[in-house]
């Protein structure tokens, strides 16, 4: 029932709310990732955005009209409205002036609280409430380095660098940490942002019913390589996913803590290298976290990207490119 109401609201208001922006964007296809969610988390985000925009837009729009009307009506010399040089107080207006924002904030607070629980990264009820009792979720351990993403699939004992492949119709649960500095994990069409911090573990989750390729971004500045620290997220069917898993498990590379130590050296991923690792040291995620908490860092050289071209040559000369 609730879902239906929501769908109505979504479809009805979405068209109205988005019409101006979509018109402005011309016919270049829908590039508005936030308005075109493909996962249940992102869809929930959009629902609350529409609620908020409708409520606030009504108030702000009416206020703007009021101001414009006053500007027109009371323009000096036009004598459209009565001039009262002393009028400066009215209890009735005061009640409205305080009342309208209070009611609006009260109303929005309800949605704020509800929404926060629905997509709480640690326990998103929009996903967990619809999970089958034994629905087998996919777990992914995300480790951000300076400046690459390592996605460990502990269930399959394998890992992939800079590419995320996930099955549709399946809940996916992430554990996230970072080796060096703080950044943020973000796939605009699938799931909102969550910070990724060294020596700490955050969580997030997503679920999507749409096969496709979606852009993943490191959305908090993490240093020189942030702009290239992107990754493609491929949502594939269950069959394709198991095929892909088999393919990765045949790859030659493996990932132990020692090789992670080399992997985590500062590296600007200009060419978007995707690397498969068929074997991963069990508990690598916790191992990295423990090492960082023990004070392990991967320092940067001074003025590293003062000359980017030179830096890329150096990176290539080190056979890391």
């Amino acid at each position: 029932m609730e879902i239906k109401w929501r769908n109505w609201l979504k479809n009805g208001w979405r068209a109205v709310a988005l019409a101006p922006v979509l018109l402005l964007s011309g016919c270049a296809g829908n590039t508005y990732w936030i308005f075109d969610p493909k996962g249940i988390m992102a869809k929930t985000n959009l629902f609350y955005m529409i609620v908020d925009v409708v409520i606030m837009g009504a108030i702000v729009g009416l206020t703007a009209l009021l101001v414009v009307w006053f500007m027109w009506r009371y323009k000096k010399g036009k004598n459209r409205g009565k001039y009262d040089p002393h009028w400066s107080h009215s209890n009735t207006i005061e009640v409205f002036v305080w009342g309208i924002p209070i009611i609006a904030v009260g109303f929005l607070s309800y949605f704020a609280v509800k929404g926060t629980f629905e997509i709480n990264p640690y326990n998103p009820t929009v996903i967990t409430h619809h999970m089958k009792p034994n629905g087998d979720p996919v777990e992914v351990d995300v480790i951000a380095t300076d400046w690459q993403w390592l996605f460990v699939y502990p269930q399959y004992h394998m890992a992939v660098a800079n590419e995320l492949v996930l099955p549709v119709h399946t809940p996916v649960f992430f554990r996230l940490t970072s080796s060096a500095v703080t950044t943020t994990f973000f796939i605009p069409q699938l799931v909102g942002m969550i910070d990724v911090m060294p020596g700490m573990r955050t969580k997030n989750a997503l679920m999507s019913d749409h096969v496709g390729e979606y852009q993943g971004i490191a959305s908090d500045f993490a240093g020189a390589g942030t702009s290239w620290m992107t990754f493609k997220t491929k949502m594939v069917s269950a069959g394709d996913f198991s095929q892909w898993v088999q393919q990765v498990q045949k790859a030659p590379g493996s990932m132990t803590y020692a090789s992670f130590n080399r992997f985590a050296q500062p590296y600007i991923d200009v060419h978007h290298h995707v690397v498969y690792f068929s074997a991963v040291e069990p508990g690598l995620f916790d191992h990295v976290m423990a090492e960082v908490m023990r004070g392990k860092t991967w320092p940067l050289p001074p003025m590293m990207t003062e000359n980017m071209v030179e830096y890329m040559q150096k990176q290539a000369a080190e056979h890391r490119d």
Partner: protein
Amino acid sequence: MLVDLPGGWSPLLGRLAWSQIPYANPILAPLFVAVVIGAIILLGLITYYGKWTYLWKEWLTTVDHKKLGVMYIIIGLVMLFRGFIDGLMIRTQQVWAVGPHSTGVFGSLHGYLTPFHFGQVYSAHGLIMILLAATPLLVGFMNIIVPIQVGARDMAYPYLNALGLWITAAAAALIMISLFVGDFAHNGWFEYAPIFELQYSPGVGVDYWIWTLQLVALGTTLGGINILATVIKMRAPGMTWGKLPIFVWASLSANVIALTSFPALQVALALVAADRYLGAHFFTAGMGGNLMLYTNLFWIWGHPEVYFVILPAFGMMSEIFPTFSEKPLFGYITMVLASMAIAGVSWLVWLHHFFTMGAGPYVNTAFSVATMLVGIPTGVKVFNWAFTMYRGRLTFNAAMLWAIGALFLLLIGGMTGMMLAIPAINYMVHNSVFVVAHFHSMLLVIVYAIFGSVLYWFPKVFGFKLDEFWAKTMFWLFSAGTALVFVPMYMLGFMGMTRRLEYVFNTSWQSYLDVMELGIVVYTLSVLAFFILLYVSIRDHAKNRVGADAWGTSRSLEWMTHSPVPFYNFAVLPHVNERDELAWRRQHGIDQVRPAHYDDIHMPNNTGVAIIMGGLTFVLGFALTWRIWWLCIVSLLAIILLMIIRSFKGDPGYIITGAELQRMEEEAYRREAQIADSHHSHPVSGGVVGNAMAYQRNDSSK
């Protein structure tokens, strides 16, 4: 040396070395040459016209709150210009570096700025705009206006006021010198843990950032104490709290915030310094440090700081709207309550800057609701301004246009702010350019209010009005620029574009970036219009002279004294009877009544100590940045010694006799009478101005 530093260190020069001067940089080297030539020309001109004594006696050593305020505003405008150039550079880099096939020059793969330089540019842009443009501009206005509006001859502590100015100037100098000596921080204006640690930011950039901010914090705290004490202790007789002008209330609430929040920043920065200089582990990821502590401490200051800058801007709008609506501010008491409510709630919302950090839903909802509470008093303010116009007689001159522009921007910023306040929405747009567009909307409210105030109060300070045509031209150009830059930015936010991208990976964003580049070009034209505005107004200043009540419809005390304001503000302090004293006097035809006789008054002496202190704090900041320990010790000792010497000497001040005052006052009245005469033949364009010059006095008022 207390920590292992990459690169060299010598006892004499610390980390400073020739290699730290970016003489090979194709952008900075020509700029440096231009700055040197400009400085030589400027100094040469001052010497040629023999103005050094004038400059030293009248400006550099002054303790006059109006002159200090003017200097604050000059610093603010210069830094606003620098910040604008940074913004121009950011936009140009982003419009250039789109997609893998975009070209690159000057050693960068795409565009013309490498990540190392791009980071410095946007970090400097943010820090400068908030702390060295908006803050000094607002502090400058508070400095000029608050003492006159409360009917005082000066601030409570004139020397402290000068000290605050010169420390702020030292901070501005420190960030400017980072252009040419070493580098600036490249991780954003608020940095973050642990990227500012020595391992991830080995250069001096973060150190420049620490000491620049520390100096700003110190200067602003001193200024805040001064304004609070002035409002509490120096009000004219009869001015009860209920009669306080609304801008004074705004300044009061803002400075309560400044006084209580800046220590949090100072501590946060000191702890960063402890990490970087002493090898402490406050914000490191390992060794028991806690990097989230930094984020919390920074925003515990950072969010109140936002209201510290917006509340005076609201106060400015509350002064401009009534004057050009020709009626009192609607809902004075709720306006005051709203300001105080904003100041109070400002302490309870800091976590909304990092909803995505992964706090639990209970914490996030608490801060979400608290954040939305800010919308209530802010909404009240918007409605009150609207109802100030209701039943008014509106004049749309340039000052009013800026205020109305601020009102509309506030509506947009408020609307998007309410979106960001809800975590379920915030997760999607946090760290995206949507947030950037939101806080630029809010900060532009301040910029609009400031330009409105420049136009509104300029005649009070300098005795002549700014040119209406060019002021309006600048307003429309600036507003067009705002629309062209920030509408596409909001749209890009909905497209998922994140902030601080040195290289834009998605080519479908190109056309929006093109529009934004066009917008920044229009902004540049508005900057040009501002320079023309200043030139034309100064050229025609004789034509645009005004008397005490420049607009003819102003309501507060500052318009009761001469324009420009004499250095003693009021020959005899006014006795306040009503909330809008001048409007009340005008209504009853007693606004021209002069004091019956003049008594001796006591004024503070000028002092060169403040500027020397400012210079020493600059040296201290520079020495700390470069870890030149001997120079740190020398400059610190010099500061302490100078404080002690000054405290021994004290300042007896001097006396202006009543006869002398009477002579100066009569001269001022004669001058104003002439202005009134000349204006009858040359009515000044622009709204109320033409019929505002009510300077014909009848004999009964003598």
